């Protein structure tokens, strides 16, 4: 029945006005996503203000379009310039940019578009049909589990981005967590590490940090490194090969489901989703050594997951009025502004709204695919512009994005400081991504650790007692020590009977053939 409702609502949207609104907003979202510093959150926030007096239906359609477009659009600069337009695309840089450098920019963009489309479709299914069920699971995450989830996010990111020297990745992640403690903490209201600077009381906004550590570092590296080879341009086949997609169907389904699951968990968001999916893809791959050097599997995993997170993140928005990600939080506020009351009562008060909303999401996804495939080739022209011209222009846009968040010159100073820090880290072999993730997850880790301890009266037993906590702790353990010889040999010995059984089953089938 749900499918019929979804189809009915989708048909209603097939009119010229809604189609134009959708195409316009998705294209604008792609542009926002492409520009470093102008994220999906900023895009939705700006458009919420601009569309405040519009008809609620059109306004929500535009905001969904911006969200879907921006998360996808971030992959463009990630692939072409190694600058993730949004935090969600940080994992895409790992394989997207190497592919671009080897002359496969068009192929990488085509694959990213298709993966994003498929990821969004998985998200759409979750949004329309699994909302009540999945919302139940998300509600089971208490402070203890959220704390472990944050630690897991930083550990996995450290592991992934510093494959040859995970220690440096973890140091970077811990440094990020420590930097996130700057400012007034949420439980006692005490200003930590502010040194009397009033601007530091609010902590570091994520946008200046992101723009500094990614964009400014990339701009300075590009402008200073005279030996760097020029960007390679190859206008090849934009539509990805059907075979590449079919070959990766397990990867796509797995990454989509991971994205949806991560999206449902409040506050986690697209960036973690893409990293987790990337790690799973690497572990499952027959060619893990290609990851980080231009692996198609890695690119597909990160892009499928970050777009699947969008659908997942909107599930708790509609079902519980709890945002799954920062852009979803702004969208939630926009829904309230437009007199839509999300939450458990939505299904009773406006039972069809979930399908209307899902249909809008579906339409935006299709628009994203059409525009994404349609404008791949014109976008490759960015590669033809000299870096020494392009990079300063990108920096001007970075300044705009950084300042636009709260209109403070202090944010520009923060951005420059993080640029210097990021540049030094890059030269010393420390990855920047765990630092950024640490800053994003630090408050979540801190608040949930202390809140959990307050709830348990100082006891640590609840942190280790639930099934979800145990699963997460196991995941953290294997992330940190899974590749060490003692652990891997124990795991191999543990799974030896299963491997033997599988081998014997295989040999039976071979004999029959």
């Amino acid at each position, binding site marked *: 029945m749900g499918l019929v409702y979804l189809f009915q609502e989708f048909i209603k949207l097939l009119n010229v006005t809604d189609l134009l609104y959708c195409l316009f907003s998705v294209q604008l979202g792609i542009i926002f996503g492409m520009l470093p510093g102008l994220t999906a959150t900023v895009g939705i926030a700006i458009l919420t203000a601009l569309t405040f007096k519009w008809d609620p239906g059109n306004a929500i359609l535009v905001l969904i379009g911006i969200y879907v477009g921006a998360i996808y659009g971030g992959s463009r600069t990630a692939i072409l310039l190694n600058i993730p337009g949004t935090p969600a695309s940080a994992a895409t840089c790992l394989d997207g940019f190497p592919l671009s450098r080897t002359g496969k920019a068009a192929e990488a963009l085509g694959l990213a578009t298709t993966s994003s489309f498929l990821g969004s479709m998985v998200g759409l299914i979750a949004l329309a049909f699994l909302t009540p069920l999945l919302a139940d699971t998300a509600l089971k995450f208490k402070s203890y589990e959220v704390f472990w989830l944050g630690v897991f996010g930083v550990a996995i990111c450290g592991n992934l981005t510093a494959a040859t020297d995970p*220690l440096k990745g973890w140091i970077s992640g811990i440094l990020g967590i420590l930097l996130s403690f700057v400012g007034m903490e949420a439980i006692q209201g005490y200003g930590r*590490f502010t040194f009397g600077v009033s601007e530091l009381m609010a902590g570091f906004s994520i946008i200046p940090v992101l723009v500094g550590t990614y964009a400014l570092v990339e701009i300075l590296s590009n402008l200073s490194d005279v030996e760097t080879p020029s960007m390679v341009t190859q206008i090849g086949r934009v539509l990805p090969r059907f075979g590449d997609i079919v070959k990766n169907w397990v990867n796509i389904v797995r990454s989509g489901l991971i994205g949806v699951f991560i999206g449902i968990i409040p506050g986690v968001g697209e960036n973690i989703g893409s990293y987790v999916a990337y790690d799973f893809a690497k572990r499952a791959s027959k060619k893990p050594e290609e990851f980080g050097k231009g692996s198609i599997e890695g690119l597909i995993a990160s892009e499928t997951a970050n777009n699947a997170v969008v659908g997942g993140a909107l599930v708790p928005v509609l079902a519980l009025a709890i945002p799954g990600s920062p852009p979803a939080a702004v969208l939630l506020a926009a829904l309230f502004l437009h007199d839509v009351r999300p939450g458990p009562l939505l299904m009773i008060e406006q039972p069809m709204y979930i399908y209307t909303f899902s249909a809008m999401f579906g339409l935006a996804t299709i628009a994203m695919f059409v525009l994404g495939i349609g404008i791949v080739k014109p976008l490759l022209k960015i590669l033809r512009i000299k870096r020494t*011209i392009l990079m300063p222009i990108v920096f001007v846009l970075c300044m705009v994005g950084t*300042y636009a968040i709260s209109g403070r010159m202090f944010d520009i100073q923060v951005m420059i400081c993080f*640029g210097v820090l990021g540049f030094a880290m890059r030269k010393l072999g420390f990855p920047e991504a765990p630092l950024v993730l640490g800053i994003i997850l630090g408050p979540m880790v801190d608040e949930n650790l202390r809140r959990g301890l307050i709830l348990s*009266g100082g006891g640590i037993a609840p942190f280790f007692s639930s099934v979800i906590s145990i699963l997460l702790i196991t995941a953290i353990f294997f992330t940190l020590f899974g590749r060490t010889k003692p652990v891997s040999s124990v795991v191999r010995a543990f799974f030896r009977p299963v491997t033997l059984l599988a081998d014997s089953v295989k040999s039976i089938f071979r004999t029959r053939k």
Partner: protein
Amino acid sequence: MQDKHKETAKPDFIAAVVLTLLSLSILGISLAMPEYARQGAHAAPSLSPTIFSLLMLFCSLILLVRSVRFRGYGIWISREMFLQFVRSRLVHNFVAAFSLVLIYAFLLGKLHFALVSALYLFANILYFRSTGLLKNLIISVLSSVSIWYCFDSLFLIPLP
């Protein structure tokens, strides 16, 4: 892996020393934070910074020990090395690019956004000799004015 660690032993040693000192400083500041004894030590704002500074100290010490094993402490900068560094094109370009960034950030808010941006773009393109003077002027002015118009007038974003 061992070769890789050997290669980076010297920069790792410097990084490890800096990180060890940093984590010790953070630990010191954390321990000096108020305890809020009524709510219990677990509610204190210093709890997480203490735990994570100890974790960073532990990781930094591992890095330090590893770099010492590969004689990373043997840092000696000869006059030739210093001169080579100072004369390197990479350093010149970095200093120029970063100085322009600083000047741009300093001037923002003091002069009109479009003017400062145009000056920044013009200076960058001029330094890196990316194109001729006239083309440079056209690119700089057009880019900065269009960015300013687009964000200030169309998107209504506050600009510095």
